[in-house]
């Protein structure tokens, strides 16, 4: 209407347009404000809430139409969109004070569906009302169930933790005990574990029997303070805490769904996944990593956090923020969520917060146990995709932290004993390669025995996978050693978080056990698989790590490969394996010489046994005789055959059948070389390559083909001068 009036006065139109629009804008704000106030004053919901906050104790419940009207109003809001925090406070206060008796209380509790968060103060007050003790037990149980259901929607837990002891007192009530245990389980921190509480729980256990809820709480106590709880916890434990959500489930889901649709109002939405509505399940059962969920909604947070001075991890978005707030970080209720966030992992890594790790390990231990060792019915297939993601995420977390979690280690020791060798193989082998050093006294039964049974009954690919895994395990152990070993002290702490201390000799024993074990697996494995070149390649990978333990990782330990690995590699039909063996032997030599010279210089106690040198020399002699000197079956060599037998075989010049020219792996190169060298020659005589000049050319030719291992080996082991007639040098032995 304003616009049409202004049309008459055209030259002022633009100005007045503006003013009008601004004026009308102002007006609309004012109107809206007024409207809002009016609405608020008349909003039947607000009026109903007012009724409940003002109603006096002793007002009759039955036949009270006013109450009925107001209650229906609240229920309607609760079931349709959930109650805002203030409403939750008012209604909870009304219910728990029993101002209108128990039936009103029950009815109100049943409709307490929070829309966003539950104010902590309200819960604390309600707990206080609980202790007044006028309330029938079933109503008390209903209340605790409600608290458990909405636990993650409670905006902070500090005050609740402050009254831990107060809540603990309720465990003595037989009916409340299971629920109180669950609540305590969610609230427990290291400092809450006290001797008298442990004693009380044990006393209850002797009275009530080994109830799962008591066991679960005790096992959590044991995690925090193993010295206080001596009780042994059964390894196969039924899940202890039941799901209490039933009275609120459908309503919560409905509210959550509806709020989800109205995007603008749902920033404080807490229930994002459907399984999140179940506290127990979320804690132990579901492998889905919960997102880091802020316990507070945005507005509430800004005013509250300054007073409470704790910062939930989820609010931090950069490393700088993390550093600033390091001292007052509030861990999320669900420790599993830490694994999904790199910032949280950084926090774990630098804070070395023992209780955080303990809680994380506890959570992980349960997840492993329930999902992989103690599966319910319904088949393992249903969770396999979930399990896969869980393990992958865990692996990347371990990779990030560069160490394994102790719960995953414990899990592996159990799992290996029931593994079929194929289920989640890459992930399981990945976890296995992350385990910290196992003391040599236990390594056999914990690792070697189950692995050996799996190795020899499984396919080639499993064998290769396990070889790779054990190589990675060795690499990690050696890396830990090179990082944590102290120069002046032999004691090394292998794991930054756990306090496993191991002496250097203990560590050496474990490494040696591992290397010998792989040697055994490799020898027999190669034999069973007909020296399959794929397996051989993985075995040689392992020995590439082993031959360099001294120089690369500073571990004074040198272990030679067994004959079962050496000979298959030497006589392999592919040149790459022979070349890699030559490289490995070259590195052994470099390590041994350097160890020997260091021994002389520093007069250190460490000592490499004569036997190792003898083995090495023997292998070098065999290699040189075989590849270079054409003295394959000479006495004193590893492979010995009777003279008559060799003659019977009708192989002329059997001694030279594995030299660099006739070795099946290199024969094709020799032929190729021959053709290039004497293009016109009709009949091929490979022996002619062995003459001094062509021999040196042939070697050059092989080296240009990329056989660096051979090159190093020849250079470091064979002193070789060109002679006129016979161009072969001799092995130089130490």
């Amino acid at each position, binding site marked *: 209407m304003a616009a049409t009036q202004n049309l008459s006065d055209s030259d002022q139109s633009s100005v007045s347009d503006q003013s009008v629009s601004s004026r009308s804008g102002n007006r609309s704000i004012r109107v809206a404000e007024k409207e809002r106030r009016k609405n608020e004053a008349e909003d039947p919901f607000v009026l109903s809430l007012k009724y409940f906050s003002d109603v006096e104790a002793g007002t009759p419940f039955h036949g009270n139409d006013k109450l009925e009207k107001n209650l229906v109003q609240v229920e*309607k809001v609760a*079931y*349709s969109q959930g109650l805002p925090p203030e409403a939750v406070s008012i209604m909870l206060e009304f219910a728990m004070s029993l101002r209108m008796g128990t039936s009103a209380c029950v009815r109100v509790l049943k409709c307490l569906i929070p829309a966003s968060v539950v104010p902590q103060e309200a819960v604390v007050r309600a707990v206080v009302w609980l202790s007044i003790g006028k309330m029938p037990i079933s109503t008390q149980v209903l209340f605790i169930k409600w608290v458990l259901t909405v636990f993650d929607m409670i905006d902070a837990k500090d005050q609740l933790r402050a009254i831990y002891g107060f809540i603990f007192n309720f465990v003595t009530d037989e009916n409340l005990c299971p629920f109180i245990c669950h609540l305590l389980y969610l609230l427990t921190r290291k400092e809450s574990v006290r001797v008298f509480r442990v004693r009380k729980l044990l006393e209850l256990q002797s009275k009530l029997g080994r109830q799962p809820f008591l066991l679960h709480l005790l096992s959590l106590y044991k995690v925090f303070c193993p010295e206080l709880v001596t009780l042994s916890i059964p390894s196969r434990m039924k899940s202890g805490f039941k799901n209490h959500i039933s009275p609120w489930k459908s309503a919560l889901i*409905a509210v959550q769904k509806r709020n989800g649709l109205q995007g603008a109002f749902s920033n404080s939405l807490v229930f994002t996944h459907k399984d999140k509505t179940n506290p127990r399940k979320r804690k132990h059962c579901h492998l889905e990593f919960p997102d880091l969920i802020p316990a507070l909604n945005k507005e509430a947070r800004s005013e509250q956090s300054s007073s409470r001075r704790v910062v939930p991890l989820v609010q931090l978005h950069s490393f700088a923020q993390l550093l600033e707030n390091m001292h007052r970080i509030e861990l999320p209720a669900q420790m599993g969520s830490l694994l999904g966030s790199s910032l949280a992992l950084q926090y774990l890594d630098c804070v070395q917060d023992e209780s955080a790790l303990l809680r994380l390990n506890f959570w992980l231990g349960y997840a492993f146990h329930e999902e992989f060792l103690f599966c319910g019915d319904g088949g393992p297939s249903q969770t396999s995709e979930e399990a896969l993601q869980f393990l992958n995420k865990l692996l990347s977390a371990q990779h990030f932290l560069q160490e394994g979690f102790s719960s995953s280690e414990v899990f592996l020791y159990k799992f290996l004993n029931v593994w079929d060798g194929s289920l989640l193989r890459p992930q399981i082998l990945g976890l296995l390669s992350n385990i910290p050093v196992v003391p040599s006294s236990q390594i056999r039964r914990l690792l070697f025995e189950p692995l050996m049974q799996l190795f020899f009954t499984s396919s080639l690919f499993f064998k290769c996978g396990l070889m790779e895994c054990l190589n990675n395990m060795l690499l990690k152990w050696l890396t830990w050693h090179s990082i944590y070993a102290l120069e002046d002290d032999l004691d090394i702490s292998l794991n930054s978080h756990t306090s496993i201390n191991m002496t250097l000799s203990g560590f050496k024993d474990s490494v040696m056990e591992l290397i010998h074990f792989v040697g055994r697996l490799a020898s027999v494995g190669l034999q069973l698989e007909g020296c399959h070149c794929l397996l051989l390649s993985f075995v040689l990978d392992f020995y590439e790590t082993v031959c360099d333990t001294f120089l690369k990782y500073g571990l004074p330990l040198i272990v030679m490969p067994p004959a079962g690995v050496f000979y298959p590699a030497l006589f392999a039909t592919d040149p790459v394996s022979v070349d890699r063996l030559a490289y490995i032997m070259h590195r052994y030599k470099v390590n041994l010489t350097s160890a020997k010279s260091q021994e002389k210089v520093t007069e250190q106690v460490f000592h490499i046994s004569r036997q190792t040198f003898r083995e090495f020399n023997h292998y070098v002699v065999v290699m040189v005789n075989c590849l270079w000197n054409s003295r394959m079956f000479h006495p004193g060599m590893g492979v010995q055959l009777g003279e008559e037998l060799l003659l019977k075989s009708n192989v002329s010049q059997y001694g030279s059948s594995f030299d660099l020219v006739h070795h099946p792996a290199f024969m094709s190169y020799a032929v190729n070389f021959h053709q290039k060298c004497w293009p016109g020659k009709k009949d091929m005589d490979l022996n002619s390559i062995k003459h001094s000049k062509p021999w040196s050319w042939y070697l050059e030719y092989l080296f240009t083909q990329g056989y660096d291992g051979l090159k190093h080996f020849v250079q470091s082991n064979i002193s070789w001068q060109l002679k006129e007639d016979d161009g072969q040098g001799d092995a130089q032995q130490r």
Partner: protein
Amino acid sequence: MGSMDNTAKRLLQRLVRRIPSQMLKTTLDKWSRLTAAQRQSMDYTESKWALTEKLLAICEENELTVKHIAELEMIHVIENPNLGMWYVFQLMDPQDDAHSVELTQFKEQFKSHLSELIRHVSIKIKKHTDEAVWIRIAWGDTFSRPNHLKPTYVVHYLQTPYVFLTSPTSKQKPLLSQALVLSTRYQAIKDANLSGRKLTAIRDLLMKQYLQVFPTKFPSPLAERNCVVSNLHIEKEQAGSAANRHQMACEAFGDGILPQLQSAVYKLETKFRDHTNKTMTERDEPFKCVVKFASTNLLESLRHSASSGVASTPVTPLLSSVPLKGKNYFVITDNGPGPSSQMKPSQK
């Protein structure tokens, strides 16, 4: 207050809660008490709570009473005969004209007989498409009006001796029995000792509506077919006995899909026999115990355990009596006929 009294409201509330959301629309459509516009105005995506409110308002508007709501309930129950517990009764000693009883006659007779026996009773009779007569009875007593919140459903197939009941109380059973016997032209009625959650299943079991297998000396065509299919390199060492077991299991329980029974109960009142336990064996009074087998499909479970060798074959009459006699409640005594069914304990 409108036509809807408290009972009607509660009945409607309960009904809406019980009917799954996705079935609510079809059920209401069948009811035909709402106008097309009213049916259009229902938004089935809303919560049950809101839907109930809406329906209550419409019912008020249409001045519907508890009887109309009872109709809606009946529609729901007829559509879902496999909810709730059904008990079977068997009519005995038919009179000469028992086979000529037809629907209208039965309806009239039943109503008049039952109303004669009890003053406050509300009876609704409907014929379903499959020849079944559905009766809904809301009971009152001398002083109170019929309670529509706890009705009894009776299903009877005319010209058969079987009657299926839900939740009859001991007070109502004699009245109902008498009305049934008189209106069907039989002389007596007895408990058939069969009950289950699925009306269709127990009906099929009684009327032998499943694939039965009879003993034969000739190899079954089934076994031959198996031989052809299986791989040359796979041989079953005990194929003969397996086929034999399967045959015997099918003879006892039937082939193909079997009626879904949920349980079989054996009440044992026999002497305790165990030569290692003298004190118990020497006692004179029988050892009482109840054995209950439960499964989602009991007969298939029993057949499977017999054919897989978990239960011994030939199948003990204790188990094979379930389909054979159409019972799933047995009382087993040592001597003399038991109160409901007598059976010799089988040799194990």
